[in-house]
């Protein structure tokens, strides 16, 4: 996360670390039930086998897991059948753990949104992860066509088409009412974008998917898989892999 701050212990009990072999932390993930997590499909490129992975929860510091952390192997990885690697389309995966986690103060599932549900107006949303923090330059302004670049130059960076599709949330950080200048970076993929709903229930609305390499050293926009769009598919996969395993 670029521009964020260190979290309090237990502040995001659904945030998990998707780890593989010698690489350690590869991606973020999100606990949605005692035996199920969500992440993005592109995390598994080149390492599609479930036995290469483990999910670690209850962490604050990656290097110091602590006695309250829980680690589980992965029983199955369900990548969305329409995932397109070339254009990072349908970038979402359901991960089945090899056994249930124990719900504690530091390990809790997040709420899945109802199909089509939107965050409540004026709700606070957060992105979290253990990705790169970068070196944000306080004095860097985002270049605009008026300041010297021509419109053609920004054609390199335009994610126009993606903005029109309901499978995505394009987050222009500068468009938020209260600008807390943060952005997701490499290593945050698969992590959550959560918003606080009525009654203090945090709900998962996005999964960190990708961002343009343009403005990557400053607050470039981020694209998130829109969980609301995929809720029916997620629930269907949990049903199939729980009750139809013959």
């Amino acid at each position, binding site marked *: 996360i670029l521009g964020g701050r260190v979290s309090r212990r237990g502040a995001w009990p659904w945030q998990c670390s998707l780890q593989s072999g010698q690489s350690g932390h590869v991606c973020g993930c999100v606990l949605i039930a005692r035996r199920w997590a969500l992440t993005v499909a592109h995390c598994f490129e080149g390492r599609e086998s479930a036995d290469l992975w483990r999910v670690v929860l209850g962490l604050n510091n990656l290097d110091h897991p602590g006695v309250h952390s829980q680690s589980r192997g992965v029983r199955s990885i369900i990548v969305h059948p329409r995932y397109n690697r070339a254009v990072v389309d349908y970038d979402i995966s359901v991960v089945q753990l090899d056994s249930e986690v124990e719900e504690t103060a530091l390990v809790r599932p997040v709420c899945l949104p109802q199909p089509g549900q939107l965050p409540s107006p004026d709700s606070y949303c957060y992105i979290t992860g253990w990705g790169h923090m970068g070196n944000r330059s306080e004095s860097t302004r985002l270049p605009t066509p008026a300041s010297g670049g021509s419109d053609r130059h920004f054609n*390199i960076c335009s994610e126009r088409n993606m903005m029109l599709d309901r499978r995505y949330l394009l987050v222009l950080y500068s468009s938020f009412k209260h600008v807390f200048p943060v952005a997701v970076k490499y290593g945050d993929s698969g992590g959550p974008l959560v918003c606080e709903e009525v009654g203090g229930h945090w709900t998962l609305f996005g999964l960190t998917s990708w961002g343009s390499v343009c403005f990557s050293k400053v607050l470039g926009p981020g694209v998130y898989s829109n969980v609301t769009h995929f809720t029916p598919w997620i629930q*269907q996969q949990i049903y199939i892999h729980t009750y139809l395993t013959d």
Partner: protein
Amino acid sequence: CISASCPSACVGGSTACDPRNSNSSCTRCEPISLELCMNLPYNLTRYPNYLGHQSQRESSVSWESSLFPALVQTGCYQYLMFYACTLLVPKCDPVSLQRVPPCRSLCRTAKEKCESVLGIVGLQWPDDSDCSQFPEEGGNATCLLPEPGVDECSPSHFKCGSGRCVLASRRCDGHLDCDDNSDEDDCGCSERALWECPGSKVCIKASMICDGFPDCPLLVDEANCSVCRDNELSCNNHQCVHRTLWCDGKRHCSDSSDEWNCVSLADRSDSVLTVFRTAAEYQVCADEWNHELSHLTCSQLGLGVPSSVSMVPDQPGVPGRRRWLHVHPEWNLRNGSALQARLEKRGHACHSRRRVSVQCSREECGLRPAVGIYPHRKKR
């Protein structure tokens, strides 16, 4: 070879290997498969390339394979794409089996003209492309320069009438990208080799028709895809399955869709449990119902845990004959099975004529006990 010795197929003069190979060198030319560079004046390449990639697969997912096609759109240098491909898929000389590099002047010109454009958007020229590593043209070493007529655009681009290249994804997207707006001409589905959804202007790929995913308005791309007999039902992927096998707890459709939506709770306040079996609706007899099955019902529907369970008398005067399912005597031996697999049809109606009704409540989620909850505090 990357490892110290070659794969066994290269040892001992196997016909699969070129005689110029030795036990420690399995160098060979391979056909170019990187789509981005399939319109070059050469068709053989050799890895590793000049960017450190070990294979065409690695090149296909590299940052450079995204950067250069995007940069070409700015028109900073006419032969930028050609230069990029000499780095990504270097020409392989079929005689010497060696790579043929780009000439130093080609490298320098591309960098001089285009590096500043990248700087405007906060990007850097690729690190591995130091021009001094490449030979000057006219020297002892062979190097590549673009010939007249070399294509300025890659197969991943659309060539505007003006000659400018724009990414193919911008063709017919409703935005005018070409100088002459030609990227928005002839944008009918058939011109773009796509299929037009009946009744709308939406274009989809032919492979999306009858693939089980609705893409057209009114789901017309998934209509009339199955040819099933009268006693069969159509799976979501348009296979046909005999109706007696539908919702029996076992998968018969390859996409398991014969076991989808088999169980439901009525939307009415009574939440009566209904099971869809053999293409008909059944009520569940409450006579042998138990708490574990209530838990299974709510869990299977993704609705949490049972908050109340009741036995609802059958409504008198219901038109037609009520269909009943009963709890299977061995229901508890079917661990991991869906609810519909633990019920059976019997030759008689429900003795008590009472139906199962279950109300579920979602389990708590999205709470942060470590942070604390202060519901009485209101933000001001």
